[in-house]
């Protein structure tokens, strides 16, 4: 690679000018983190805030996971055993909301907080106080959401997609709390995204040109754009639900001239880009890990960048593939079907590039690589079932069956969550300064990867055989497969306790980690010591 001429890039030039009079002696030369709980409440440090996001996400992962255990326990046998149908509906709804807004999204924001400034050689995030605010409103939002479960009449029970009229006519009083909780989550996401996007635009080190940025930074740049574009639309959707339910409007009520189908259009205009918000950073993580453990450069860097951008653009014109059975003119069905299938092209480019990176590499299978390889294989399975669902006539059969549940759990659990696990295993030594137990990590991986397939793979067959989703009871013919699925579910849930134990152990101590524990790893974050000093790159490094 050639050295970028600082004079050709305005941003670089300014940073350069501002730093000439300082000397590069001060990595973490001054303040150590303050002590006690107030460090975490008042912090403006991107690493502290990243840590907060990650712990919050892990907590939510276990709370949402506990709800999944309730769901699988109830579905272990046909008939109603453990919970009332009304409570079952609350579990499916809140499980979905928590996993989407509480586990996956905050985990990615936490990773962005920790990594983006280190990867681009920035001193911190661009707007550090707002960074604190965007984290600390999240726990309050989930406090509100979870508290609504204990209200008279129960919490939200209309599915995480809160379709009207379920959420407007047939929902409980807690709907208002649900709406305001979503508003706060949205505000948090928008502020977090603005922070990331401004950091990437404005705080890159001299020489860190666009096409030298690590793919994790690229994918987050695109994700941040998607977040700023669609979270406000979600805010609009929940606001209309609020006024329809409590203030007598009829946006989603045909008797007043509105249309319940319009709810689905507005919701999925948010919802489909949201799907990519939850997977693009995963692409970035895997694109960092696979080259490191293949000891090769990433195959097709620039095509990866263009693929991410194309996926993001396409994500705005495919929303109605979630509503093929709802009713639409035929020309709209065809348009949304073909646009959806187009997404397979850039996604295929990415999968091809990951495989090509591994081709003839000197591979080794440390825990991050295990999860990354599992990601490539299992996410691709989720992608293929997505293609099946994209075909309108076929979707008429699959819609609202367990096939859909299988599909989106493959992309979200073995896709998004596995990539987050891979990221944790890859960067934990950098965060904590300690190596973790490789044995425990490998146990966690093999238990997870086996149980997750026992859990979700048979769901495809349940769906193809016609088992509907979101029901607490089912026909006797589905009993055997559901038992297998539930056993897989319990095993997967228990396996995650290994991860919790490993992370706690790693935070508390362990073998000292070198600055670069993986010999094939590349990037600025590996050039600073482990654990990363409280303030890294107070003077920007020169990127060659």
């Amino acid at each position, binding site marked *: 690679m050639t050295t970028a001429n600082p004079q050709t890039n305005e941003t670089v030039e300014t940073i350069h000018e501002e730093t000439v009079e*300082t000397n590069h002696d001060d990595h973490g030369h001054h303040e150590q983190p303050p002590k006690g709980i107030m460090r975490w409440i008042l912090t403006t440090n991107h690493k502290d805030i990243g840590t907060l996001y990650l712990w919050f996400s892990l907590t939510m992962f276990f709370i949402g996971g506990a709800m999944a255990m309730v769901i699988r326990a109830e579905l272990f046998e046909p008939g109603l055993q453990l919970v009332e149908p009304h409570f079952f509906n609350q579990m499916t709804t809140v499980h979905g909301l928590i996993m989407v807004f509480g586990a996956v999204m905050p985990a990615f924001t936490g990773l962005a907080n920790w990594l983006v400034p280190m990867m681009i050689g920035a*001193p911190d995030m661009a707007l550090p*106080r707002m960074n604190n605010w965007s984290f600390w409103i999240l726990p309050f939002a989930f406090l509100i959401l979870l508290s609504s479960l204990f209200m008279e009449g129960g919490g939200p029970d209309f599915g995480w997609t809160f379709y009207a009229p379920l959420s407007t006519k047939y929902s409980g009083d807690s709907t*208002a709390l649900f709406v305001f909780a979503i508003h706060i989550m949205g505000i948090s996401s928008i502020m977090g995204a603005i922070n990331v996007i401004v950091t990437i635009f404005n705080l890159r080190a001299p020489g860190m040109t666009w096409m030298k940025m690590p793919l994790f930074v690229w994918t987050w740049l695109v994700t941040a754009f998607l977040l700023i574009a669609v979270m406000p639309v979600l805010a609009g959707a929940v606001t209309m639900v609020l006024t329809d339910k409590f203030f007598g409007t009829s946006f989603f009520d045909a*008797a007043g001239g*509105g249309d319940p189908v*319009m709810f689905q259009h507005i919701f999925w205009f948010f919802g489909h880009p949201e799907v990519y918000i939850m997977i693009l950073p995963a692409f970035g993580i895997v694109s960092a890990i696979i080259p490191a453990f293949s000891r090769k450069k990433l195959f097709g860097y620039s095509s990866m960048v263009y693929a991410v951008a194309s996926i993001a653009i396409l994500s705005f014109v495919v929303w109605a593939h979630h509503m093929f059975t709802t009713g639409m*003119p035929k020309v709209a069905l065809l348009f949304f079907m073909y646009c959806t299938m187009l997404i397979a092209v850039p996604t295929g480019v990415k999968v091809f590039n990951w495989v090509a990176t591994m081709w003839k590499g000197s591979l080794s299978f440390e825990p991050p690589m295990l999860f990354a390889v599992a990601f490539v294989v299992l996410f691709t399975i989720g992608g293929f079932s997505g293609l099946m669902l994209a075909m309108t006539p076929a979707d008429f059969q699959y819609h609202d069956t367990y096939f859909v549940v299988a599909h989106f759990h493959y992309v979200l659990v073995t896709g998004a969550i596995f990539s987050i696990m891979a990221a944790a295993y890859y960067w934990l030594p950098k965060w904590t300064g300690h190596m973790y137990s490789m044995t425990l990590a490998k146990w966690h991986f093999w238990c997870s990867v086996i149980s997750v397939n026992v859990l979700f793979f048979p769901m495809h067959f349940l769906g193809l055989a016609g088992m509907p989703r979101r029901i607490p009871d089912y026909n006797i013919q589905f009993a055997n497969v559901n038992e297998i699925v539930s056993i897989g579910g319990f095993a997967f849930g228990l396996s995650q306790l290994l991860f919790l134990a490993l992370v706690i152990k790693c935070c508390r101590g362990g073998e000292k980690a070198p600055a670069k524990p993986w010999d094939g790893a590349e990037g600025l974050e590996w050039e600073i010591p482990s654990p990363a000093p409280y303030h890294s790159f107070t003077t920007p490094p020169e990127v060659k």
Partner: protein
Amino acid sequence: MSTHEHYYVPAQSGWPIVGAIGLFLIAFGAGHYVAQIDTYGHGGWGIYVLLAGIATILYMITGWFRTVINESMTGLYSSQMDRSFRQGMSWFIFSEVMFFGAFFGALFFIRMFSVPWLGGEFHYTSTHEFLWPNFVAEWPLVKTPKGDTTQAMPWHGLPLYNTIILLVSSVTLHFAHVALEKGKRSALKAWLAATIVLGLCFLYLQAHEYIHAYTELGLTLESGVYGNTFFMLTGFHGLHVTIGTIFLITLFIRILKGHFSPDKHFAFQAGSWYWHFVDVVWLCLFVFVYVL
């Protein structure tokens, strides 16, 4: 602060957690208040929590902004920091555009699809026949399918005056900005004061229009999708004008105190962007809600 830090990273701050608690109180209070009204016909304790939340947020906003203004006046912010603020503000306005986009999208969907479909257009004959055979698809929708009637708000009169007022206010604010950049402080004060007065006039007339709609036209938030889209769009716009006016008043006070220089005035720039954005939203409103 160490002299080594060229990109200003603020020390620990208590304002964000105050803001988080404020938002929590607002959401928790409003959520319960709305449900309590729905159940009992009157509000319970929720309103007090809501008000406490609003007070907390106001306290946070004033305190946080005071901190930022002090930091800015002591010269802690580099030109790079200034760019962060500008870019942050631009993306924030983009998010606001998308928020209004959701409601404009609803308006277009209702006008292009749901109302014509209920009237039997595009092969939806049976929808029309089986649901409300007497329904007439028209816009403004003054008679809903279930039979509620209202009157449409004409575009001439108050809405037209308000359009002129906001357009002129964008021009006066631009002149204020030019005056600031040329260092003409008294012209700056005069143009900015004129903009604030125009903003207040707009709000006064809009309040007048709402009273007219509720008391004389029978046009309320509950009068079917016409009233829904009318009040939600103009209401959220009015809220933004209110915020923008408060923003401009704050800038005016700062200018009286001698803040801002011809080449460093991010806050003024941000307020001006926000005001022009609110103006553009109104133009779309005027065309699609009132005229067409």
